[in-house]
């Protein structure tokens, strides 16, 4: 009798084991099958949406143009970005207008031209190039921040919704107005204050990382020969302005805030003459730091998650990351993107502060946690599809590290670029 019971238990265990294995194999086979056999093709990509807050004429469109120009090829980075073809045509047209020293500056963005530019961030994976994440950048006319919409127009409402949904905010500070303010010009200071008021209203309640970008940085070259000293001088001016100081006090303690000087045309391209900015006939188009604002988005989001987690949430995320290591890479890749919508994911999001972590951010954050805990996945033991997935995950991590590297370089060169509560003393 005991022999029969033991045999029955063993058989039952075997049956359960076989069922579990069958389910897992089916799931993995389904992931591998994907579309036309590429399991990665159907894996959702984390998407981060960026809104640049800046008044009309502050340089948003030029920044976007130069930023894309800089990032569209890998250069010395391990990634590059790609826009949809019709947007690429438009970006190239703007670039030609800007870089042509015999032509005028591009005309401003009209309300009807408001739209999002969506960039794939690509990296090399084996012998192919694949997108590993997406960045959205809203292009709109700056007057939407200060002027009433005409009756019947929805542009302003769409902008406000975009601000609410943004994963990162970039405040655009017009370098020309800063220069005027530094030289005591009332008009310049008034416009600068209006710009800060418009963006601070949205940023005070923001729960995402915030970076301020000083455009037209080349127009401030004569403030001081040393760039970091120059940046510190400008920061002092800004901290003396109503609203900005309060914003840094409120937000600086709990999120990453930056002050990034950029020139979309370079230091030897334009001159200020009689209050107007003219292109030099022999100007050299050589933008500087234009890639940093976008590069900082993802690392700053991940850093903010770190800052927002309490011990319980951190342990829960680590446990989940450990659990995911027991899956195959392909299965983990597919299920990670839906994790935030599942019960366990919602619990984690709630523990970590609710809406401040979007699904995309959680995806990359879990990804990073797995890096810290896997201790080296045994790559050789994986089958071909799982190897693809593992390589994809590793490639995505490398891109995030490249982003972080770019930000680290800026901080090393310009320590004054980091805004924080230390500025208040």
């Amino acid at each position, binding site marked *: 009798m005991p022999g029969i019971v033991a045999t029955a238990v063993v058989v039952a265990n075997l049956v359960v084991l076989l069922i579990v294995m069958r389910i897992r194999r089916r799931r993995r086979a389904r992931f591998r099958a994907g579309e036309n056999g590429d399991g990665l093709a159907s894996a959702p990509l984390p998407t981060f949406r960026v809104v640049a807050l800046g008044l009309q004429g502050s340089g948003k469109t030029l920044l976007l143009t130069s930023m894309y120009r800089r990032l569209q090829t890998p250069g010395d980075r391990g990634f590059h970005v*790609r826009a949809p073809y019709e*947007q690429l045509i438009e970006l190239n047209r703007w670039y030609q207008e800007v870089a042509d020293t015999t032509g005028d500056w591009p005309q401003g963005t009209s309300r009807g031209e408001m739209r999002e530019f*969506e960039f*794939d961030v690509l990296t090399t994976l084996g012998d192919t190039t694949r997108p590993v994440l997406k960045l959205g950048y809203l292009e709109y006319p700056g007057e939407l921040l200060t002027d009433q919409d005409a009756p019947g*127009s929805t542009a302003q409402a769409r902008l406000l919704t975009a601000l609410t949904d943004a994963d990162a905010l970039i405040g655009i500070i017009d370098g020309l107005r800063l220069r005027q303010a530094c030289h005591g010009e009332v008009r310049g200071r008034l416009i600068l204050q209006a710009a800060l008021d418009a963006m601070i209203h949205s940023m005070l309640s923001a729960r995402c990382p915030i970076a301020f970008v000083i455009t037209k940085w080349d127009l401030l070259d004569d403030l001081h020969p040393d760039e970091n000293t120059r940046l510190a001088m400008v920061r002092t001016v800004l901290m003396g302005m109503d609203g900005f100081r309060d914003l840094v006090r409120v937000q600086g303690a709990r999120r990453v805030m930056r002050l990034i000087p950029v020139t979309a045309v370079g230091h030897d391209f334009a001159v200020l003459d009689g209050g107007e900015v003219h292109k030099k006939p022999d100007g050299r188009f050589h933008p500087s730091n234009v890639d940093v604002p976008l590069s900082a988005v993802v690392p700053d989001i991940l850093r903010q998650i770190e800052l927002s987690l309490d011990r319980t949430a951190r342990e829960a995320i680590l446990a989940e990351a450990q659990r995911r290591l027991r899956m195959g890479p392909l299965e983990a890749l597919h299920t990670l993107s839906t994790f935030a919508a599942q019960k366990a994911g919602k619990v984690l999001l709630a523990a970590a502060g609710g809406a401040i972590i979007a699904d995309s951010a959680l995806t990359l954050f879990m990804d990073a946690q797995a890096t810290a805990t896997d201790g080296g996945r045994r790559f050789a033991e994986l089958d071909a599809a799982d190897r693809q997935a593992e390589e994809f995950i590793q490639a995505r991590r490398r891109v995030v590290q490249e982003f972080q590297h770019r930000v680290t370089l800026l901080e090393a060169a310009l320590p004054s670029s980091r805004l924080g509560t230390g500025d208040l003393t």
Partner: protein
Amino acid sequence: MTASGWPFLIARGRRRGYTVLLAPGWLIAAQGHGVLEETVTPVAGQPWRVAVAGTTQGRRVGLAWAEHPVTGADVTGTPDSGGGAPVRDEHSRPLRLLYGFLCADAMIGDPSGDDLARSRDAALDTYRRFLTDEEHFTIEGSTPFDITSSLTRQPGHSGRAVGSATSAASPFASTPGSTWTSRWVLPAVGTLAVVLVGVGAIWIASSGDTPDPPCTPASTTAGPPAPAAPLGTTATQGTAGPSGTTALPGTTGPPATTGPSRTSAPAPSAPPGTAASAPAATTGAAGAAPPIQTAQENQAGLPPCP
């Protein structure tokens, strides 16, 4: 029988941003002139553009417009003074006018040069008044004139405004001209995808285990991983045409686009009825562009206005 056109003007000043400065009085009274701001975009190197839009009252209007770079002579109002030098705003950008005329309940085919010139004259008069006091300027109502442009009759009411074509809940949506895509094609594609996925799931579930591919011999080295299976063969799966955007489920919804407003003609395959709810825009080549017709009109077979 002649039709009337109402001049309109959208422009920015030396200090103020883009805004509607001149519009038909009845459109202003109906609080619907915002539709001009959202529909009228730069002509991008073309001599003119035309579009159809719907007002907040559901009335359809035909629009034709062109661009005019502002010169010193435009500002003074006398050709002999001020010269042809461009006038710039306080950000050193050249000023331009987006001017044109509007026809109620009609679609403009080929806008005539005379009609555009009359609209520009009216726009310049308004613009000069605007420049003298930008901060306190209020929108002006335009006076209609008899147009000579070719028109196509339109159904009187669309029942839907262009102003609301791009939902406030979708801030990252593309330009209004692409909304027919999100209204009809995407749901249809989505439904088809759901059906296909369902069929696929049933097939997979009933097909038993898919045999694993043969295992690659385990590497004992600690070097870089062996090359993965080629990905390029399926890298374009889920891409959306020439845009190169990857249409992956659960990411960002419809791929962003600058929309048909940049294209030369409305999509010929637009499903029936879409024209009533979406603006169609086309860029013109001087004297060569065919009259614009939406899919709905083609099907209705409406004759052109006399």
